[in-house]
């Protein structure tokens, strides 16, 4: 009985590991040159699947994701640079297709606000500390 339980446990644990490493890239999509394939994978991880909008096309099994993966590999084979491929995609689908938004005037707030909040937070804590110190002395 214990052995069966152990077996089930091991199965559950390992199947989890497999699931974590599971991508939707199908074997027939792979490029033969491993360096180029790696480039394709890296680009795919940065490209949003527009059908299921919080997945990258590397993870998504939507047909459009597959089409884009194949297209990216075709472009790599044709000798396009990563930059050219990203440009090609944003010209058609906008910056939204990039999971990493570019630093532009329209995205300035997006990038800078966290630092502003951090500064405000530090300032507030600093102010608070000072105040409580003063209170302590008054006692």
């Amino acid at each position: 009985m214990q052995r069966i339980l152990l077996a089930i446990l091991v199965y559950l644990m390992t199947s989890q590991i497999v699931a974590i490493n599971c991508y939707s890239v199908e074997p027939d999509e792979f490029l033969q040159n491993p360096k180029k394939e790696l480039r394709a994978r890296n680009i795919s991880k940065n490209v949003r699947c527009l059908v299921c909008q919080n997945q990258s096309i590397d993870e998504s099994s939507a047909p459009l994701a597959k089409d884009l993966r194949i297209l990216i590999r075709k472009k790599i084979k044709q000798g396009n640079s990563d930059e050219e491929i990203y440009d090609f995609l944003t010209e058609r689908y906008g910056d939204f297709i990039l999971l990493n938004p570019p630093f532009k005037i329209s995205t300035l707030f997006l990038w800078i606000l966290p630092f502003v909040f951090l500064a405000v937070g530090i300032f507030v804590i600093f102010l608070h500390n000072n105040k409580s110190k003063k209170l302590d002395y008054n006692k």
Partner: protein
Amino acid sequence: MKKNILITPIILFFLILLVFFYLLIIDRNPSELPSVLINKKVPAFEAKLLLENKIFVSPGEFGNETTLVNFFATWCKPCLDEHLYLKKLSNEKGLKIIGVNYKDDSKRAIKWLKKLGNPYSNVLLDPNARLGIDWGVYGLPETFIVNSNGVIKYRLVGPITKKNYGAFVLKVKEVEK
């Protein structure tokens, strides 16, 4: 002064809540994306035709009149619902409808058009979604309005329905102003 500081986060919290609530109740589809092709020339491409043994060359065949570019497929149920309204639109004067048969089986598409009627002046073939990607298509059906200068003016994601037909016709007329 101290009271003010205490009350600010609470006010801020409710303001943010109000914004979220507003976004929740207005009629919008959060997964709908604006097209980056708006106010740009139609992309250049070549495509085979479904019903004729000819090649369609863009942008050469655009211009002169308002043109709708409708991406459809026989496997797409909303496309079937939309078909009725496309036929209605095909009766409008000075309006041409180009269909793009997206990732579909040509035989089925021909049958489909024979059965339901053909509102398209040309039906282009897009077996591997290359045209779809050039137009930034991410779900079927999608309809683009191209004005008589060959400039894309509007994109509708999803079908033309009874509900949005009137507004869509207005959009079609607007692009020539």
